C-alpha cells in the first residue's frame, strides 16, 4: 500500500539525461497525448532509483502536465512499480500453476531459507529481497525467476542453481 508520508522526506532530482529519456518517450505519441508516456516513464524512474517514491511521482506528474493522483493510481495498479525500496537484487519468483507443477513452491521456500528473510523483506546487507509473482510467460522452463531492472531470466531453477545465483550476485555486488 502506498503511504505518501513514508516517502515524502526523500527529495529526488531528475538528471538531464533522465529527462532526455522522458522526452524521447513522449515523442512517440500524438500532440497532447503525452500521458501515454506514464508507464514507460515510471519504468525509467524505477530503473534509476530502484523504486518509485511519492516525490518522484509528483515530479513525473509535473513533467507530464497531469495531476499527481493520475500517477499514484497508475503506479499502485500495476504490480511492477515498487512502492518501497527493495534489495539491490529483487528476486521475483513465478508461483502460478505450471511453475507449481514443477516445484515453484519448494523453490520459494528454499529462497526464503537461503536468504533468511520473509517475502518482501530485505536482507540486512541490503543486497536481496524476494517475492512471488504471477505467470512470467516462461512456463515451459519452470520454475523461473526474474531480476529487474533489465528483467533477466533464470529458468529451470534448482536449489543448486539458486545457490550459484546468490553467490554470483553477492560477488558482483562487491566488485
Amino acid at each position, binding site marked *: 500500500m502506498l503511504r505518501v508520508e513514508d516517502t515524502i522526506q526523500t527529495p529526488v532530482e531528475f538528471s538531464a539525461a533522465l529527462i532526455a529519456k522522458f522526452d524521447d518517450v513522449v515523442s*512517440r505519441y500524438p500532440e497532447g497525448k503525452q500521458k*501515454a508516456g506514464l*508507464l*514507460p516513464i*515510471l519504468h525509467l524512474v524505477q530503473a534509476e532509483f530502484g523504486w518509485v517514491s511519492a516525490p518522484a511521482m509528483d515530479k513525473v506528474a509535473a513533467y507530464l502536465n497531469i495531476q499527481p493522483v493520475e500517477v499514484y493510481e497508475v503506479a499502485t495498479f*500495476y504490480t511492477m512499480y515498487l512502492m518501497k525500496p527493495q534489495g539491490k537484487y529483487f528476486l521475483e519468483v513465478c508461483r*502460478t500453476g505450471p511453475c507449481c507443477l514443477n516445484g515453484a513452491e519448494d523453490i520459494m521456500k528454499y529462497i526464503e531459507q537461503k536468504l533468511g528473510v520473509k517475502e518482501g523483506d530485505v536482507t540486512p546487507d541490503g543486497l536481496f529481497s524476494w517475492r512471488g509473482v*504471477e505467470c512470467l*510467460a516462461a512456463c515451459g522452463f519452470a520454475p523461473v525467476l526474474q531480476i529487474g531492472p533489465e*528483467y533477466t531470466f533464470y529458468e529451470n531453477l534448482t536449489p543448486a542453481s539458486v545457490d550459484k545465483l546468490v553467490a554470483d550476485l553477492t560477488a558482483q555486488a562487491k566488485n
Partner: protein
Amino acid sequence: MGRKLLLEHINVPGIETFDVYRSKGGYDAVAKALKMSTDDIVEEVKKSGLRGRGGAGFPTGMKWSFLAKPEGKARYLVCNADESEPGTFKDRYLMTYIPHLLIEGMIIGSYALGANVSYIYVRGEMMPQIRILEKAIAEAKAKGFLGKNILGSGYDLELYVQPGGGAYICGEETALIESLEGKRGNPRIKPPFPAIAGLWGCPTVVNNVESIAAIVPIIRDGGDEYAKIGIGRSTGTKLISASGNINKPGIYEIELGVSVEDFIYSDEYCGGIPNGKRLKAVVAGGSSVPILPANLILKTVNNQPRLMSYESLSDGGFATGTMMGSGGFIAFDEDQCIVRNTWNFTRFYHHESCGQCSPCREGTGWMEKVLHRLEYGHGKLSDMDLLVDVSKKIEGNTICPLGDAAAWPVASAIRHFRDEFEWHVTNGAEATSRNYGLAHYADPLPVLEPAPAAG
C-alpha cells in the same frame, strides 16, 4: 514433419538480425503488399481463414474489415504482446528469436488498415524482448522498411514499442488500450468497439503477436495456400506452448489437426510424460479454458480421437469439451492434485481482477477462500455446490471476459473431478499428506450406443 510457416527459419544463426532474416526471403511480403490495394490484402487474410491467436479465435480478416474509416481521423494497429495467460509463452519466444517476423507483419497490417503510427504493447516484464524489438525496428528503419515513403510507395509508418506495468488484465484489448493511454488497465464497456472508438477515440485493431506474424506467410504465399494447411475451419499452423509434466516442454508449431495423442506422446512433439508416469489431466488452451481428464482430452465422447483444432477441442461443448484458447497446453501427471491447481489458478484470477465488477472482484475471492479450505482439509461436502453456484453468478455478469475465465476452470474441475474434491473433504487429514492419484481419470470412455432412430 508438419509444415512450418512461422518458425521455419528459427534455427538459422543470426535470424534475429535484419540481414539474415532478409536473406531468407524476409520482408518480401512487405514489398508485395505495398503493390496491392488495401482491400485486396484484407481479402487475402479473409481467404486464409486465419483466426485470432490471442485466445478468442475471431477471424482476423473479418475483424479488419470492420474497422471504421471516418475522414480526418487516425487509425491504429496495436499488437497485443501482453502475454500473461498462465501456460502461454509463445509470443515471448517469437519476439526473442525472430523479431523481424512480427515487424514485417506489423508493416503489412498497418498498411492494410491505413495506420501511419502503430504500437506493440509488450508486457513490462519482457524488458529483454523490448530491447530486441527496438533494435530490430531501428534496423528495419535504416533499411527503408519503416519511416517515410517505405520502398518508394508513398506509405509512411512509425512503429513504437510500449511497455506495460505488470497486469494480466491488460491483455484484454480495451484494458490494453486504456493502459497504452497511460491509465489503469480497466476494461471498457463495449460498445463502442475498438474498431469504432479505440486508442484516443480513434478506430483501432488489436491483434495478437502470432496473428500478426501469420499475416506474413499469408501475403507471401496467398490466402488460399495458407488455408490448404489445417483441417476444416482451423486453417494454417498454430504455436502451442507446452508445459507441465511432459518430457519436452517448449514451443511447437503444429499444423492444426494433429491428434492430441500424437502431440503428447510422439517424439516430434512433447515426447510423453516423464518418469513413466501416466497422464491425469490437461488444460489445453491456457489457464482460462476448461480442464479435462486424460480420457476426455484424448477422445471425444463419441470415441473419436481428439485433434488439436478449434472444432475438435471444443467438441462436446463445456459438458465434455474445452477450447483452443491461446494454445497454452499444460499436462498434469498422475501425482498432481486438481484441487490444489484449481486453487492456484483461482488465486491468480483474484489477484488479477481489476476490481470494477462486484461478481468478479468478490466472486474470485470467495472461490479462492473455499478452494483453500478444501485443499487444506477443512472443506465441507456442500462446498462444491457453493463453488459452482458462485462461478455461475460470475459467468456472463461482468464487463470483460476475465470473470468467465475465472469461472470456467473451477466449474470444469468440479464437473470432471468431483470425487477428488469430495475425497479432500471426507479424508481431510490424509489429503494434506498425499494426493488422490490417477483414480479413474484415464479409464476408457464408455462407448455410447448410437441413439435409436426417431419414430
